[in-house]
């Protein structure tokens, strides 16, 4: 089970990129086990092993060599598990992971060529099929705030920002998806990523900036604009999405400007879905729509480049003729 190591457009090997993801994902995974106990551990294990098993099986079916250092399937499985509530039945996570790998990753030639982020597609399919389990949060340890921040915002409510609530928000002491609440960890992960793959962060920043601007301009809460900003950024899986789903190197545009555009566009869609949509946490749907837009931005940039180059060329010819 070994094969040739693939390299991304950024020059990093897939082993390095997904190794970094795995390292970063371990921290929220540990936090989720701290908050939700064995339920979180079993969901994480089931999702990771299902994804790995499906990857091996799929590779065998299409007679493609399985590369043991390519941990993209395991990363997808863990991402899906972290976005699920701890109380979701195990088969929900298993089916979502299987969908991510068998429908999105394997048929398109692996994590490097997938047109959509596998974890986003897997979670979206689970959200569509098992809405009652995916957006119902419970089962946390004693002392956790039982109402999720997403639900508070979705119902138009607000939260007074006191020292206690801010600490609760930073440490993820709210009910919600089991691994996406702890803000401190994501800040640390952003720093880690800035050191390891800073180009990928451009999209994440574009995404967060557009979400922040919309949160300030169009608050959903009846509180201040600042509380709207803090609650929108820290609720649900916004930071998790920005860090792990938006930076997926297979679906990111090639050019830096396009990366910013892609991030902004996905952020706008995400916030529009939060304001108008039926789902409490529509991050994955927004990412999937953004993925469809992603390749279009590259094509558009290339065409514009061709047009400008040809215009420049004709202008130079005219100057020469003159």
């Amino acid at each position, binding site marked *: 089970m070994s094969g040739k190591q693939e390299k991304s457009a950024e020059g990093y090997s897939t082993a390095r990129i997904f190794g970094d993801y795995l390292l970063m994902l371990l921290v929220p995974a540990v936090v989720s086990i701290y908050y939700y106990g064995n339920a979180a551990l079993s969901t994480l294990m089931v999702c990771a092993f299902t994804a790995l098993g499906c990857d091996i099986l799929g590779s065998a079916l299409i007679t493609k060599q399985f590369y043991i250092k390519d941990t993209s399937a395991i990363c997808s499985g863990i991402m899906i598990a972290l976005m699920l509530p701890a109380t979701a039945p195990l088969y929900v996570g298993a089916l979502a992971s299987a969908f991510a790998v068998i429908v999105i990753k394997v*048929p398109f030639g692996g994590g490097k060529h997938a047109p959509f982020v596998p974890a986003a597609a897997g979670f979206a399919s689970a959200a*569509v*099929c098992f809405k009652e389990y995916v957006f119902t949060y419970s089962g946390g340890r004693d002392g956790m705030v039982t109402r999720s921040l997403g639900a508070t915002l979705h119902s138009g409510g607000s939260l007074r920002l006191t020292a206690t609530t801010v600490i609760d928000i930073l440490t993820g002491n709210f009910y919600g998806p089991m691994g996406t609440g702890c803000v401190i960890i994501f800040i640390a992960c952003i720093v880690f990523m800035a050191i390891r793959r800073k180009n990928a962060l451009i999209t994440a920043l574009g995404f967060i900036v557009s979400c922040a601007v919309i949160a300030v301009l169009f608050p959903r809460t009846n509180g201040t604009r600042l509380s709207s900003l803090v609650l929108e950024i820290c609720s649900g899986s916004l930071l998790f999405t920005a860090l792990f789903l938006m930076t997926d190197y297979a679906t990111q545009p090639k050019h830096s400007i396009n990366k910013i555009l892609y991030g902004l566009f996905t952020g706008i869609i995400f916030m529009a879905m939060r304001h108008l949509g039926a789902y409490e946490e529509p991050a994955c749907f927004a990412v999937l729509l953004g993925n469809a837009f992603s390749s279009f931005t590259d094509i558009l940039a290339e065409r514009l480049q061709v047009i400008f180059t040809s215009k420049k060329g004709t202008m130079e010819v005219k100057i020469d003729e003159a």
Partner: protein
Amino acid sequence: MKLKFSDVFFKGAVEYNPVVIQCVGLCPVILASTNLKDALIMSALILADLIINCFIASALLKKIPRAIRVAIYMLVSLLIVLPTLWFIGSKSLMTMSLAMRVCIPLVAVNSVTAVHCEQFAVKNNVRLALYDGIAAGFGVMFILVILGVLREIIGNGSILGYPLDLTFKLSGLLMPYGALVVLGFIAAISKAVFTGGQKQKPAEEKTTEETPAEAPAHEETVPEQIELDLNYVDNENDEYAYLLSSVNELIASFADDKEGGNEE
């Protein structure tokens, strides 16, 4: 060589299936396959539409210009759909799903009919055209039934309306994306079974420098490729020239006609 019904049927319905291989007429297939009952009604309609249109195209429409022929296919399809709607009755129709209420009238503009009539029926005799219509109709029916069964059982937890005791249901399969995912896997399996999973090589252009001595060796190494001949062919040796065609080629031929007309 005289073509047998079994040859035409196997090629038209299975090896070059209109839905999963030619990717024609996907819209009604996706919308009408959420349950087996709808899938059967839709496949029966498409089968009848194909058989009648292929027969008429081959028997009566060979000398008529293409643009008029396509309009006639729609008219004929409409004449099939309207009695069907009358037979079903407005009350029964209203009990059907919204997708079926939309899809049944849309059979009149089904692209499977236009492609098969234009690419095969008008170029061949009535017997072969009928064979092709039946084959293509059953090809669509196979896929619709498979999709209908899978989507109803897994997505809705029932079969023909009778509930099954399943642990969970994947209601996402009832959505269009579910149908597309299943169709993708059926297409992949079909290709793996009937082409051995090999990638299709692009057709090599024949060079004029090729010597007669080299030609036999070339024929031995390169598998026989069927090329689309858009010229009128009225013999039974025209084996499945249409089958490698696609809607794009049909549109291209329309464009060629238009350009030719402008030049004249």
